[in-house]
Protein backbone atom coordinates (compact mmCIF):
# COMPACT_ATOMS: atom_id res chain seq x y z
CA UNK A 1 0.00 0.00 0.00
CA UNK A 2 1.17 3.52 -0.75
CA UNK A 3 1.94 5.60 2.31
CA UNK A 4 3.19 9.11 3.03
CA UNK A 5 6.89 9.25 3.91
CA UNK A 6 9.13 12.18 4.74
CA UNK A 7 12.79 12.54 3.86
CA UNK A 8 14.09 14.45 6.86
CA UNK A 9 17.12 15.81 5.02
CA UNK A 10 14.90 17.51 2.43
CA UNK A 11 12.30 19.04 4.77
CA UNK A 12 12.62 22.81 4.93
CA UNK A 13 10.30 23.19 7.90
CA UNK A 14 8.13 25.58 5.88
CA UNK A 15 4.84 24.18 7.30
CA UNK A 16 3.18 24.40 3.88
CA UNK A 17 2.05 20.78 4.26
CA UNK A 18 0.01 21.80 7.30
CA UNK A 19 -1.78 24.50 5.30
CA UNK A 20 -2.31 22.27 2.28
CA UNK A 21 -3.71 19.56 4.54
CA UNK A 22 -6.10 21.91 6.33
CA UNK A 23 -7.24 23.32 2.99
CA UNK A 24 -7.73 19.93 1.33
CA UNK A 25 -9.89 18.79 4.23
CA UNK A 26 -11.85 22.02 4.61
CA UNK A 27 -14.36 21.27 1.87
CA UNK A 28 -13.99 24.89 0.72
CA UNK A 29 -12.82 25.61 -2.82
CA UNK A 30 -10.92 28.83 -2.16
CA UNK A 31 -7.79 28.61 0.01
CA UNK A 32 -8.02 32.14 1.37
CA UNK A 33 -11.62 31.70 2.47
CA UNK A 34 -10.75 28.36 4.02
CA UNK A 35 -7.68 29.40 5.99
CA UNK A 36 -7.12 33.15 6.20
CA UNK A 37 -7.24 34.51 9.72
CA UNK A 38 -8.43 31.21 11.19
CA UNK A 39 -6.70 28.69 13.43
CA UNK A 40 -5.90 25.63 11.32
CA UNK A 41 -6.34 22.00 12.29
CA UNK A 42 -4.07 20.02 9.98
CA UNK A 43 -3.69 16.25 10.12
CA UNK A 44 0.03 16.49 9.48
CA UNK A 45 2.39 18.50 11.64
CA UNK A 46 6.00 19.55 11.57
CA UNK A 47 8.21 18.40 14.41
CA UNK A 48 11.39 20.39 14.73
CA UNK A 49 14.22 21.67 16.83
CA UNK A 50 17.42 23.54 15.97
CA UNK A 51 18.97 20.69 14.02
CA UNK A 52 16.14 18.75 12.43
CA UNK A 53 12.63 19.14 11.05
CA UNK A 54 10.20 16.75 9.42
CA UNK A 55 6.49 16.24 8.95
CA UNK A 56 4.54 13.57 10.82
CA UNK A 57 1.23 12.05 9.82
CA UNK A 58 -0.53 8.72 10.38
CA UNK A 59 1.63 5.68 9.53
CA UNK A 60 -1.43 3.57 8.73
CA UNK A 61 0.06 0.84 10.92
CA UNK A 62 -0.54 -2.77 9.95
CA UNK A 63 -1.28 -3.48 13.64
CA UNK A 64 -2.91 -0.21 14.69
CA UNK A 65 -3.20 0.35 18.42
CA UNK A 66 -5.59 3.30 17.89
CA UNK A 67 -8.12 0.95 16.26
CA UNK A 68 -7.80 -1.56 19.08
CA UNK A 69 -8.06 1.11 21.75
CA UNK A 70 -10.91 3.30 20.49
CA UNK A 71 -13.64 3.13 23.13
CA UNK A 72 -16.28 4.22 20.62
CA UNK A 73 -15.49 1.73 17.86
CA UNK A 74 -15.00 4.80 15.68
CA UNK A 75 -11.61 3.93 14.17
CA UNK A 76 -11.36 1.19 11.60
CA UNK A 77 -9.11 -0.07 8.84
CA UNK A 78 -10.37 -0.41 5.31
CA UNK A 79 -8.04 -1.59 2.55
CA UNK A 80 -5.11 -0.66 4.77
CA UNK A 81 -6.29 2.91 5.35
CA UNK A 82 -7.15 3.83 8.93
CA UNK A 83 -10.22 6.01 9.18
CA UNK A 84 -12.25 7.76 11.85
CA UNK A 85 -16.03 7.75 11.80
CA UNK A 86 -16.59 11.30 13.02
CA UNK A 87 -20.20 10.60 13.90
CA UNK A 88 -19.12 7.92 16.37
CA UNK A 89 -16.11 9.64 17.97
CA UNK A 90 -16.92 11.09 21.39
CA UNK A 91 -13.62 12.93 21.81
CA UNK A 92 -12.24 10.84 24.68
CA UNK A 93 -8.62 11.22 23.47
CA UNK A 94 -7.77 7.54 24.03
CA UNK A 95 -6.27 7.41 20.52
CA UNK A 96 -4.02 10.35 21.42
CA UNK A 97 -2.99 8.46 24.54
CA UNK A 98 -1.88 5.39 22.59
CA UNK A 99 -0.54 6.53 19.19
CA UNK A 100 3.28 6.21 19.36
CA UNK A 101 3.66 8.78 16.55
CA UNK A 102 1.47 11.55 17.87
CA UNK A 103 -0.53 11.36 14.66
CA UNK A 104 -4.03 12.08 15.96
CA UNK A 105 -5.41 15.37 17.18
CA UNK A 106 -8.79 16.98 17.67
CA UNK A 107 -10.45 19.15 15.05
CA UNK A 108 -12.11 22.47 15.88
CA UNK A 109 -15.09 20.60 17.37
CA UNK A 110 -13.08 18.31 19.60
CA UNK A 111 -13.64 15.34 17.31
CA UNK A 112 -10.51 13.37 16.54
CA UNK A 113 -8.97 13.46 13.12
CA UNK A 114 -6.00 11.97 11.37
CA UNK A 115 -4.52 11.63 7.91
CA UNK A 116 -6.75 9.57 5.66
CA UNK A 117 -4.46 10.09 2.65
CA UNK A 118 -6.85 12.62 1.03
CA UNK A 119 -8.60 9.67 -0.63
CA UNK A 120 -12.06 10.97 0.26
CA UNK A 121 -11.58 14.71 -0.15
CA UNK A 122 -11.43 16.85 -3.27
CA UNK A 123 -7.66 16.52 -3.56
CA UNK A 124 -7.85 12.77 -4.20
CA UNK A 125 -4.17 12.25 -3.38
CA UNK A 126 -2.19 13.48 -0.36
CA UNK A 127 -2.18 17.30 -0.56
CA UNK A 128 0.90 17.46 1.67
CA UNK A 129 2.81 15.51 -1.00
CA UNK A 130 1.62 17.43 -4.06
CA UNK A 131 2.29 20.77 -2.36
CA UNK A 132 5.70 20.04 -0.82
CA UNK A 133 8.06 22.58 -2.46
CA UNK A 134 11.19 20.51 -1.90
CA UNK A 135 9.62 17.11 -2.54
CA UNK A 136 10.54 16.04 0.96
CA UNK A 137 7.18 14.36 1.42
CA UNK A 138 6.54 11.43 -0.88
CA UNK A 139 3.66 9.01 -1.45
CA UNK A 140 4.99 5.61 -2.31
CA UNK A 141 5.04 1.86 -1.72
CA UNK A 142 7.74 0.60 0.63
CA UNK A 143 7.51 -3.15 1.06
CA UNK A 144 4.65 -4.82 2.87
CA UNK A 145 5.16 -7.99 4.88
CA UNK A 146 2.11 -9.84 3.69
Amino acid at each position, binding site marked *: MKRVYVNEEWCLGCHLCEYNCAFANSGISDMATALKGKPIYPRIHIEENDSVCYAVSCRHCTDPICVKSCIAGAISTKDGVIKIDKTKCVGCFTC*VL*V*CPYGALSPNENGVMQKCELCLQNSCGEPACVTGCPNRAIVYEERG*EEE
Partner: protein
Amino acid sequence: MKEYVIIGNGVAAVGTVEGIRKIDKQSKITVISEENHPVYCRPLISYYLENKTDLERINYRDKNFYERMKCKVIYGKKAVKIDTAKKQISLCDGSSIPYSSVCVATGSSPFVPPFEGLQTVENKFCFMTLDDTLALQKAITEQSRVLIVGAGLIGLKCAEGLCGRVADITVCDLADRVLSSILDNDCAAIMQKHLENNGIKFLLNDSAKSFQKSTALMQSGKKIEFDILVLAVGVRANTSLLTDIGGEVNRGIIVNEKMETSVSGIYAAGDCTEGEDISIGEKRVLAILPNAYMQGFTAGVNMAGGNQAFDNAIPMNSIGFFGLHAMTAGSYDGEVYEKKTENTLKRLFTKDGKLKGFILIGGNERAGIYTSLIREQTPLDTVNFELLKENATTVAFSCENRRKKFGGVV
Protein backbone atom coordinates in the same frame (compact mmCIF):
# COMPACT_ATOMS: atom_id res chain seq x y z
CA MET B 1 -13.42 -28.15 12.29
CA LYS B 2 -13.17 -26.64 15.73
CA GLU B 3 -15.99 -25.37 17.90
CA TYR B 4 -15.16 -22.13 19.59
CA VAL B 5 -17.27 -20.79 22.41
CA ILE B 6 -16.90 -17.30 23.82
CA ILE B 7 -18.61 -16.59 27.13
CA GLY B 8 -19.42 -12.90 27.13
CA ASN B 9 -20.27 -10.43 24.39
CA GLY B 10 -18.24 -7.35 25.16
CA VAL B 11 -15.12 -5.87 23.59
CA ALA B 12 -12.92 -8.78 24.71
CA ALA B 13 -15.32 -11.14 22.95
CA VAL B 14 -15.07 -9.10 19.72
CA GLY B 15 -11.29 -9.22 19.99
CA THR B 16 -11.50 -12.99 20.39
CA VAL B 17 -13.79 -13.36 17.38
CA GLU B 18 -11.53 -11.22 15.20
CA GLY B 19 -8.44 -13.05 16.46
CA ILE B 20 -9.97 -16.43 15.64
CA ARG B 21 -11.07 -15.27 12.19
CA LYS B 22 -7.61 -13.99 11.38
CA ILE B 23 -6.51 -17.64 11.38
CA ASP B 24 -9.61 -19.80 11.02
CA LYS B 25 -12.21 -18.52 8.58
CA GLN B 26 -14.64 -21.42 8.83
CA SER B 27 -15.06 -23.14 12.18
CA LYS B 28 -18.13 -22.49 14.26
CA ILE B 29 -18.05 -19.67 16.80
CA THR B 30 -20.76 -19.36 19.45
CA VAL B 31 -20.99 -16.23 21.60
CA ILE B 32 -23.00 -16.44 24.81
CA SER B 33 -24.38 -13.02 25.69
CA GLU B 34 -26.05 -12.43 29.02
CA GLU B 35 -27.15 -8.97 27.90
CA ASN B 36 -29.83 -8.68 25.25
CA HIS B 37 -27.83 -6.32 23.05
CA PRO B 38 -25.32 -6.73 20.27
CA VAL B 39 -21.87 -5.64 21.43
CA TYR B 40 -21.86 -1.99 22.42
CA CYS B 41 -19.27 0.46 23.71
CA ARG B 42 -19.63 0.09 27.45
CA PRO B 43 -17.58 3.20 28.28
CA LEU B 44 -20.04 5.23 26.21
CA ILE B 45 -23.04 4.78 28.47
CA SER B 46 -22.39 8.13 30.12
CA TYR B 47 -22.14 9.75 26.69
CA TYR B 48 -25.55 8.29 25.96
CA LEU B 49 -26.97 10.24 28.90
CA GLU B 50 -25.32 13.35 27.49
CA ASN B 51 -26.82 12.73 24.04
CA LYS B 52 -23.34 12.45 22.55
CA THR B 53 -24.21 9.02 21.21
CA ASP B 54 -27.40 7.08 20.59
CA LEU B 55 -28.59 3.49 20.50
CA GLU B 56 -27.35 3.13 16.93
CA ARG B 57 -23.93 4.73 17.22
CA ILE B 58 -23.16 3.15 20.58
CA ASN B 59 -22.79 -0.22 18.84
CA TYR B 60 -19.14 -1.29 18.83
CA ARG B 61 -19.37 -2.99 15.45
CA ASP B 62 -21.61 -2.60 12.40
CA LYS B 63 -24.88 -4.48 12.29
CA ASN B 64 -23.57 -7.23 9.99
CA PHE B 65 -20.64 -8.01 12.27
CA TYR B 66 -21.75 -11.38 13.62
CA GLU B 67 -22.99 -12.54 10.25
CA ARG B 68 -19.77 -11.51 8.54
CA MET B 69 -17.76 -13.29 11.23
CA LYS B 70 -20.00 -16.38 10.96
CA CYS B 71 -20.84 -16.16 14.65
CA LYS B 72 -23.90 -17.45 16.39
CA VAL B 73 -24.95 -15.31 19.33
CA ILE B 74 -27.12 -16.70 22.10
CA TYR B 75 -28.75 -13.71 23.77
CA GLY B 76 -30.16 -13.43 27.26
CA LYS B 77 -28.58 -16.56 28.66
CA LYS B 78 -25.89 -17.06 31.21
CA ALA B 79 -23.20 -19.73 31.15
CA VAL B 80 -23.25 -21.46 34.53
CA LYS B 81 -20.68 -24.22 34.21
CA ILE B 82 -17.75 -25.35 32.11
CA ASP B 83 -17.60 -29.14 32.07
CA THR B 84 -14.00 -29.89 31.12
CA ALA B 85 -14.53 -33.68 31.05
CA LYS B 86 -17.43 -33.54 28.58
CA LYS B 87 -16.05 -30.40 26.95
CA GLN B 88 -19.32 -28.55 27.12
CA ILE B 89 -20.72 -25.34 28.57
CA SER B 90 -23.97 -25.49 30.53
CA LEU B 91 -26.34 -22.57 30.24
CA CYS B 92 -28.82 -21.29 32.81
CA ASP B 93 -31.76 -22.83 30.92
CA GLY B 94 -30.30 -26.34 31.22
CA SER B 95 -29.06 -26.52 27.64
CA SER B 96 -25.42 -27.11 26.81
CA ILE B 97 -22.97 -26.26 24.05
CA PRO B 98 -19.97 -28.37 23.06
CA TYR B 99 -16.59 -26.68 22.70
CA SER B 100 -13.12 -27.51 21.54
CA SER B 101 -11.75 -24.33 23.04
CA VAL B 102 -13.42 -21.62 25.04
CA CYS B 103 -12.66 -18.02 25.96
CA VAL B 104 -14.07 -16.67 29.21
CA ALA B 105 -14.78 -12.99 28.62
CA THR B 106 -17.31 -12.46 31.36
CA GLY B 107 -16.22 -8.99 32.41
CA SER B 108 -16.99 -7.66 35.84
CA SER B 109 -20.00 -6.85 37.97
CA PRO B 110 -20.72 -3.96 40.28
CA PHE B 111 -19.78 -4.57 43.87
CA VAL B 112 -22.61 -3.46 46.14
CA PRO B 113 -21.67 -3.38 49.82
CA PRO B 114 -24.35 -4.66 52.20
CA PHE B 115 -25.61 -1.23 53.29
CA GLU B 116 -28.19 -1.37 56.02
CA GLY B 117 -31.59 -0.39 54.70
CA LEU B 118 -30.59 -0.47 51.04
CA GLN B 119 -33.70 -2.51 50.27
CA THR B 120 -35.87 0.45 51.38
CA VAL B 121 -34.45 2.65 48.59
CA GLU B 122 -36.87 2.74 45.71
CA ASN B 123 -34.78 4.31 42.93
CA LYS B 124 -31.37 2.70 43.06
CA PHE B 125 -29.14 1.92 40.11
CA CYS B 126 -25.77 0.60 39.16
CA PHE B 127 -24.00 2.12 36.15
CA MET B 128 -22.36 -0.69 34.24
CA THR B 129 -24.66 -1.71 31.43
CA LEU B 130 -26.82 -0.18 28.75
CA ASP B 131 -29.88 -1.51 30.56
CA ASP B 132 -28.73 0.21 33.77
CA THR B 133 -28.42 3.40 31.76
CA LEU B 134 -31.83 3.15 30.11
CA ALA B 135 -33.44 2.49 33.49
CA LEU B 136 -31.62 5.42 35.09
CA GLN B 137 -32.61 7.71 32.23
CA LYS B 138 -36.23 6.72 32.68
CA ALA B 139 -36.14 7.45 36.40
CA ILE B 140 -34.57 10.93 36.36
CA THR B 141 -36.44 14.20 36.11
CA GLU B 142 -35.26 17.79 36.16
CA GLN B 143 -36.16 17.86 39.83
CA SER B 144 -34.16 14.78 40.80
CA ARG B 145 -31.58 14.98 43.55
CA VAL B 146 -28.96 12.34 42.77
CA LEU B 147 -26.58 10.72 45.23
CA ILE B 148 -23.70 8.79 43.69
CA VAL B 149 -21.74 6.51 45.99
CA GLY B 150 -18.24 6.26 44.55
CA ALA B 151 -16.02 8.97 43.05
CA GLY B 152 -14.17 6.64 40.71
CA LEU B 153 -14.29 6.53 36.92
CA ILE B 154 -17.78 5.05 36.81
CA GLY B 155 -19.35 7.32 39.43
CA LEU B 156 -17.88 10.49 37.98
CA LYS B 157 -18.71 9.68 34.36
CA CYS B 158 -22.26 9.03 35.56
CA ALA B 159 -22.25 12.42 37.29
CA GLU B 160 -21.09 14.12 34.10
CA GLY B 161 -23.70 12.31 32.06
CA LEU B 162 -26.50 13.36 34.41
CA CYS B 163 -25.30 16.95 34.84
CA GLY B 164 -27.81 19.41 33.45
CA ARG B 165 -30.57 16.82 33.36
CA VAL B 166 -31.20 16.70 37.10
CA ALA B 167 -31.45 19.27 39.87
CA ASP B 168 -28.57 18.26 42.04
CA ILE B 169 -25.70 15.75 42.07
CA THR B 170 -23.70 14.77 45.15
CA VAL B 171 -20.87 12.27 44.95
CA CYS B 172 -19.48 10.64 48.08
CA ASP B 173 -16.48 8.39 48.52
CA LEU B 174 -14.55 6.89 51.39
CA ALA B 175 -11.32 7.91 49.68
CA ASP B 176 -9.90 11.36 50.37
CA ARG B 177 -9.86 12.28 46.68
CA VAL B 178 -11.64 11.74 43.38
CA LEU B 179 -10.43 9.12 40.88
CA SER B 180 -8.20 7.66 43.58
CA SER B 181 -7.24 4.66 41.43
CA ILE B 182 -5.58 6.80 38.77
CA LEU B 183 -4.82 10.27 40.18
CA ASP B 184 -2.52 11.40 42.98
CA ASN B 185 -3.59 14.08 45.47
CA ASP B 186 -2.63 17.20 43.54
CA CYS B 187 -4.04 16.01 40.24
CA ALA B 188 -7.24 14.82 41.90
CA ALA B 189 -7.64 18.22 43.54
CA ILE B 190 -7.50 19.95 40.15
CA MET B 191 -10.09 17.59 38.71
CA GLN B 192 -12.33 17.89 41.75
CA LYS B 193 -12.29 21.68 41.57
CA HIS B 194 -13.16 21.53 37.88
CA LEU B 195 -16.06 19.18 38.59
CA GLU B 196 -17.26 21.43 41.41
CA ASN B 197 -17.13 24.42 39.07
CA ASN B 198 -19.53 22.46 36.89
CA GLY B 199 -21.98 21.94 39.69
CA ILE B 200 -21.03 18.53 41.09
CA LYS B 201 -20.92 18.42 44.90
CA PHE B 202 -18.57 16.16 46.83
CA LEU B 203 -18.47 14.47 50.19
CA LEU B 204 -15.07 12.83 50.45
CA ASN B 205 -13.59 10.85 53.35
CA ASP B 206 -17.17 9.90 53.93
CA SER B 207 -19.57 7.34 52.64
CA ALA B 208 -23.05 6.07 53.22
CA LYS B 209 -23.53 4.00 56.32
CA SER B 210 -27.19 3.19 55.96
CA PHE B 211 -30.28 4.14 54.01
CA GLN B 212 -33.84 4.82 54.98
CA LYS B 213 -35.96 5.26 51.85
CA SER B 214 -34.72 8.55 50.38
CA THR B 215 -32.30 9.45 53.14
CA ALA B 216 -28.69 8.40 53.36
CA LEU B 217 -27.06 8.45 56.77
CA MET B 218 -23.39 9.09 56.24
CA GLN B 219 -20.55 7.75 58.35
CA SER B 220 -19.82 11.33 59.41
CA GLY B 221 -23.32 11.63 60.79
CA LYS B 222 -24.54 13.86 57.95
CA LYS B 223 -27.86 13.10 56.34
CA ILE B 224 -28.37 13.38 52.59
CA GLU B 225 -31.81 13.51 51.01
CA PHE B 226 -31.98 12.09 47.51
CA ASP B 227 -34.42 10.87 44.88
CA ILE B 228 -32.03 8.72 42.85
CA LEU B 229 -29.21 6.60 44.21
CA VAL B 230 -26.36 5.39 42.00
CA LEU B 231 -24.05 2.74 43.43
CA ALA B 232 -20.59 2.95 41.91
CA VAL B 233 -18.42 1.69 44.74
CA GLY B 234 -16.38 -0.64 42.60
CA VAL B 235 -16.45 -3.72 40.44
CA ARG B 236 -15.50 -7.36 40.87
CA ALA B 237 -14.21 -9.60 38.12
CA ASN B 238 -16.62 -12.37 37.17
CA THR B 239 -14.42 -15.36 37.86
CA SER B 240 -16.76 -18.05 39.16
CA LEU B 241 -16.69 -20.22 36.02
CA LEU B 242 -12.98 -20.77 36.62
CA THR B 243 -13.12 -20.88 40.41
CA ASP B 244 -15.74 -23.65 40.22
CA ILE B 245 -13.44 -25.94 38.29
CA GLY B 246 -10.33 -25.22 40.34
CA GLY B 247 -8.72 -22.82 37.88
CA GLU B 248 -6.18 -20.36 39.20
CA VAL B 249 -7.98 -17.20 40.25
CA ASN B 250 -6.87 -14.23 42.29
CA ARG B 251 -8.81 -10.95 41.90
CA GLY B 252 -9.23 -11.99 38.32
CA ILE B 253 -8.72 -15.17 36.33
CA ILE B 254 -4.98 -15.64 36.04
CA VAL B 255 -3.78 -15.63 32.43
CA ASN B 256 -0.37 -15.88 30.81
CA GLU B 257 0.76 -13.78 27.87
CA LYS B 258 -1.06 -16.09 25.45
CA MET B 259 -4.26 -15.60 27.49
CA GLU B 260 -4.30 -19.22 28.58
CA THR B 261 -5.77 -19.89 32.01
CA SER B 262 -4.41 -22.64 34.25
CA VAL B 263 -7.00 -25.00 32.74
CA SER B 264 -6.11 -26.57 29.40
CA GLY B 265 -8.28 -25.41 26.50
CA ILE B 266 -9.72 -22.49 28.45
CA TYR B 267 -8.63 -18.97 27.64
CA ALA B 268 -9.75 -15.74 29.26
CA ALA B 269 -9.71 -12.09 28.24
CA GLY B 270 -10.86 -8.68 29.38
CA ASP B 271 -11.99 -7.30 32.73
CA CYS B 272 -12.41 -10.76 34.28
CA THR B 273 -8.68 -11.48 34.03
CA GLU B 274 -5.48 -10.74 35.82
CA GLY B 275 -2.51 -10.48 33.48
CA GLU B 276 0.97 -9.03 33.69
CA ASP B 277 1.28 -5.25 34.08
CA ILE B 278 4.79 -4.58 32.79
CA SER B 279 4.95 -1.19 34.49
CA ILE B 280 5.08 -2.95 37.87
CA GLY B 281 6.15 -6.41 36.79
CA GLU B 282 3.23 -8.06 38.55
CA LYS B 283 -0.11 -9.48 37.65
CA ARG B 284 -3.17 -7.33 38.21
CA VAL B 285 -6.64 -6.68 36.86
CA LEU B 286 -6.35 -4.07 34.08
CA ALA B 287 -9.98 -3.31 33.42
CA ILE B 288 -9.58 -1.00 30.45
CA LEU B 289 -11.01 -1.30 26.99
CA PRO B 290 -7.78 -1.42 24.95
CA ASN B 291 -6.60 -4.26 27.14
CA ALA B 292 -9.84 -6.15 26.68
CA TYR B 293 -9.56 -5.97 22.92
CA MET B 294 -5.88 -6.88 22.77
CA GLN B 295 -6.26 -9.75 25.23
CA GLY B 296 -9.27 -11.01 23.31
CA PHE B 297 -7.49 -10.82 19.98
CA THR B 298 -4.49 -12.66 21.43
CA ALA B 299 -6.73 -15.36 22.90
CA GLY B 300 -8.53 -15.76 19.58
CA VAL B 301 -5.37 -16.17 17.52
CA ASN B 302 -4.02 -18.76 19.94
CA MET B 303 -7.33 -20.63 20.18
CA ALA B 304 -7.25 -20.98 16.40
CA GLY B 305 -3.77 -22.47 16.46
CA GLY B 306 -1.77 -19.31 15.85
CA ASN B 307 0.97 -18.04 18.10
CA GLN B 308 0.51 -14.62 19.59
CA ALA B 309 1.68 -13.04 22.83
CA PHE B 310 0.37 -9.90 24.49
CA ASP B 311 3.28 -8.95 26.67
CA ASN B 312 3.26 -5.19 27.04
CA ALA B 313 0.08 -4.38 28.91
CA ILE B 314 0.05 -1.34 31.17
CA PRO B 315 -2.76 0.56 32.82
CA MET B 316 -3.67 3.60 30.73
CA ASN B 317 -6.65 5.89 30.86
CA SER B 318 -7.83 8.94 29.03
CA ILE B 319 -10.77 10.44 30.79
CA GLY B 320 -12.30 13.86 30.42
CA PHE B 321 -14.89 15.77 32.39
CA PHE B 322 -16.53 18.93 31.10
CA GLY B 323 -13.66 19.55 28.68
CA LEU B 324 -10.75 18.90 31.05
CA HIS B 325 -8.88 15.73 30.17
CA ALA B 326 -6.74 13.58 32.40
CA MET B 327 -4.40 11.08 30.84
CA THR B 328 -2.60 8.53 32.94
CA ALA B 329 -0.43 5.51 32.22
CA GLY B 330 1.84 3.04 33.97
CA SER B 331 2.85 3.22 37.62
CA TYR B 332 3.64 6.27 39.72
CA ASP B 333 6.85 4.92 41.13
CA GLY B 334 10.32 6.45 41.19
CA GLU B 335 11.62 9.90 40.52
CA VAL B 336 9.10 12.58 39.57
CA TYR B 337 9.55 15.29 37.00
CA GLU B 338 6.87 17.93 37.17
CA LYS B 339 5.87 20.74 34.85
CA LYS B 340 3.04 22.99 35.82
CA THR B 341 1.31 25.83 34.00
CA GLU B 342 -1.85 27.68 34.84
CA ASN B 343 -4.07 25.13 33.14
CA THR B 344 -1.94 22.01 32.91
CA LEU B 345 -0.02 19.65 35.13
CA LYS B 346 2.41 17.03 33.90
CA ARG B 347 4.07 14.42 36.06
CA LEU B 348 6.53 11.92 34.61
CA PHE B 349 7.75 9.04 36.76
CA THR B 350 11.12 7.44 36.00
CA LYS B 351 12.89 4.51 37.59
CA ASP B 352 15.85 2.33 36.60
CA GLY B 353 16.50 4.60 33.61
CA LYS B 354 13.04 4.09 32.15
CA LEU B 355 9.79 5.99 32.02
CA LYS B 356 7.38 4.09 34.26
CA GLY B 357 4.30 6.26 34.26
CA PHE B 358 2.75 9.69 33.81
CA ILE B 359 -0.18 11.86 34.70
CA LEU B 360 -1.23 14.70 32.41
CA ILE B 361 -4.00 17.10 33.32
CA GLY B 362 -4.86 19.20 30.29
CA GLY B 363 -2.05 19.55 27.70
CA ASN B 364 -1.91 16.07 26.20
CA GLU B 365 -0.61 16.64 22.67
CA ARG B 366 1.11 13.52 21.29
CA ALA B 367 0.90 11.86 24.72
CA GLY B 368 1.10 8.47 23.00
CA ILE B 369 4.82 9.06 22.56
CA TYR B 370 5.16 8.88 26.36
CA THR B 371 2.93 5.83 26.48
CA SER B 372 5.06 4.07 23.89
CA LEU B 373 8.20 4.73 25.96
CA ILE B 374 6.57 2.88 28.86
CA ARG B 375 5.19 0.04 26.77
CA GLU B 376 8.43 -0.44 24.85
CA GLN B 377 10.49 0.00 28.05
CA THR B 378 12.82 2.32 26.16
CA PRO B 379 16.09 3.04 28.02
CA LEU B 380 16.03 6.81 28.55
CA ASP B 381 19.74 7.12 27.74
CA THR B 382 18.85 6.27 24.13
CA VAL B 383 16.56 9.31 23.81
CA ASN B 384 16.84 13.00 24.63
CA PHE B 385 14.82 12.89 27.81
CA GLU B 386 15.41 16.57 28.60
CA LEU B 387 13.52 17.39 25.42
CA LEU B 388 10.81 14.87 26.25
CA LYS B 389 10.23 16.40 29.65
CA GLU B 390 9.16 19.58 27.90
CA ASN B 391 7.12 18.03 25.13
CA ALA B 392 6.15 14.61 23.85
CA THR B 393 8.09 14.67 20.60
CA THR B 394 9.79 12.16 18.34
CA VAL B 395 12.55 14.74 17.80
CA ALA B 396 13.91 13.31 21.05
CA PHE B 397 14.61 9.97 19.34
CA SER B 398 17.84 9.20 17.55
CA CYS B 399 17.89 9.69 13.80
CA GLU B 400 18.22 5.95 13.30
CA ASN B 401 15.30 5.18 15.58
CA ARG B 402 13.19 7.77 13.79
CA ARG B 403 14.05 6.29 10.43
CA LYS B 404 12.87 2.93 11.70
CA LYS B 405 9.65 4.43 13.07
CA PHE B 406 8.79 6.59 10.10
CA GLY B 407 10.68 5.11 7.18
CA GLY B 408 8.98 1.82 6.54
CA VAL B 409 5.80 -0.11 7.18
CA VAL B 410 4.93 -0.39 10.86
